[in-house]
């Protein structure tokens, strides 16, 4: 199986005045294509920093990060934006849908930055909304949808560019037990279709939906058997 992600000796420090605070210590992680991986850790463990680096929102202080063979260290802001558009599909805890755009327009959003024509965008967005079972709600604004439906729209948005990795940050954090489980079932389905998923969570019950769980504590990674 092909490696889609490889982190070698990644460290990340934040500077608060004179003092450096290292939140990741020599992290090594390899993710293969088609894997469903949970990154499990309590708050303050460094898991958000991991997500930012994996998602190319931030760059490591030291170490080497390869995403689909691209060395992320060398890239500037504009190139990082292209990588995010092409390689990463983000799913956030609070959905982050734009409130004045319809479900369909929200899903189309990343395709605008990919430079697709309006008709092509609409077509692909509708396919994705169908995939998450919401094509009949495509004209609805986010506030006309339930939490679970909003998260499914967000997942459709994350998948519409056909990214290498679906990167989810506490995807069930704002949902109740039942809808959370539905979202997890959708993730399992997607993974069954060979989508690579990395999910960040503090909830071991949610983390267990993944085939592979990696624990993070105080900036150190440990592999955990499920």
């Amino acid at each position, binding site marked *: 199986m092909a490696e889609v992600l490889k982190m070698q000796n990644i460290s990340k420090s934040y500077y608060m005045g004179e003092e450096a605070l290292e939140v990741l210590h020599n992290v090594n992680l390899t993710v293969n294509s088609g894997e469903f991986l949970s990154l499990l850790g309590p708050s303050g463990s460094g898991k958000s920093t991991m997500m*930012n680096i994996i*998602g190319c*929102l*931030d760059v490591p202080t030291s170490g080497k990060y390869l995403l689909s063979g691209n060395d992320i260290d060398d890239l500037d*802001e*504009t190139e990082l*934006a*292209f990588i*995010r*558009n*092409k390689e990463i599909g*983000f799913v*956030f805890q*609070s959905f*982050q849908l*734009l409130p*004045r755009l319809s479900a369909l327009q929200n899903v189309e*959003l*990343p395709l*605008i*930055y*990919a*430079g697709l024509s309006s008709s092509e965008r609409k077509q692909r967005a509708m396919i994705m909304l169908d995939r998450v079972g919401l094509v009949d709600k495509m004209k609805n604004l986010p506030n006309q949808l339930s939490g679970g439906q909003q998260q499914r729209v967000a997942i459709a*948005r994350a998948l519409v*560019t056909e990214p290498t990795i679906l990167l989810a940050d506490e995807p069930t954090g704002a949902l109740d037990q039942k809808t959370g489980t539905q979202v997890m079932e959708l993730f399992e389905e997607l993974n069954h279709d060979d989508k690579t998923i990395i999910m960040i969570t503090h909830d071991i019950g949610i983390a267990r939906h993944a085939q592979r769980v990696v624990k993070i504590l105080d900036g150190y990674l440990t592999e955990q058997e499920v």
Partner: protein
Amino acid sequence: MLLESIKMSYENIVKNKLRSFLTMLGIVIGVASIIALITIVQGATNSISNQVTELGANKITVNVMGTPLKQGLNDENLSNISKLDNISGVSPTISGKTGIIYNGKVIENVTVQGKNEVYFKMDSSLLKTGRPINILDLESKNQVTIIGSDIVNELYYGLNPIGKELIVNGTTYTVIGTLKASSGFSMGSNNDSVVIPYTTALRSLGVKNISSLDVFLDDTTLADDTVTEIKGVLNPAFNYKDNAYTIFNMGDMIESFESMMSMMSLLLAGIAAISLVVGGIGIMNMMLVSITERTTEIGLRKALGATPNRIQLQFVIESIFLSIVGGVIGLVLGGLIAYTASTLIGTEFSISISTISLAVGFSGLVGIVFGYMPARKASQLNPIDALRSL
């Protein structure tokens, strides 16, 4: 990509209608005042310079004060000047005041002007009825006269004055024509004067010299050269004495008047431009507020793959959009104000393409200048901080 950015900007402006309108108002007022001021001043300038041109832009007037030895021009000076290049005609004026009598009715202190045929040839609108003075009248010093409209009304009311007699300074003249009533402020109304051949005037008014001369030009662009040549004739005639005569070039006057007015309209536009700058600051302020409000959105867009340039473009377009729309509204408003004002004042109304492009271009520029800084700020937002702010 540009189209998408324009669409997004439009949606955002429409979403905040009241705020966008208030922001635009600054630009509207700025552009409206520039357009109104320039147009009104230009209209007034055109009206005035047209009126002045009617008096004769192709005319050079020579006024002679004379010297103790030579008090005015004689026929020889006159013919020397008319022989110069670029001169289509020379019209001398001899004037005096005297009483006139018709049928026992007397008018005292009437202006009598001695003129030649050129005077009538150069302005065919002078004559109302009858015939002008011709060369025969001049050569044989005929006692004929053309009378102003006030004289017609006072002496010949209800009569056709042509062919009637008129006693001027004790001598009997025949009326051959009447002058059209002139109105307005044109130099020296002829309404209450009588015109006679200047040769007749030299003999019968007791005036020996010509004190004023209108020189008509073929080509007004060569007016300066012609003035120099006229001086070449007059200087020897007056023995090179200072202050023997003055030359008044109408074209020069129009030119200096127009340059004065364009200075004035520039000055006014400059003052109005200050309000445009204030409007620009309003736009900048709104953009900064909008960016603070939309921090999360900007972060999300960046996470989804928007490049910094793309974000910057979107906000600059939003700012340009606001200021151009404001500029167009201001243009229409300023045009209306100028139209109303020029109708009230009675000057002509015309808006030039250059004025329109100045206004739209200037407001677009304001959009770019004052939108750039906030847009740059937005483009440099860190997506992590931006997403976290929710």
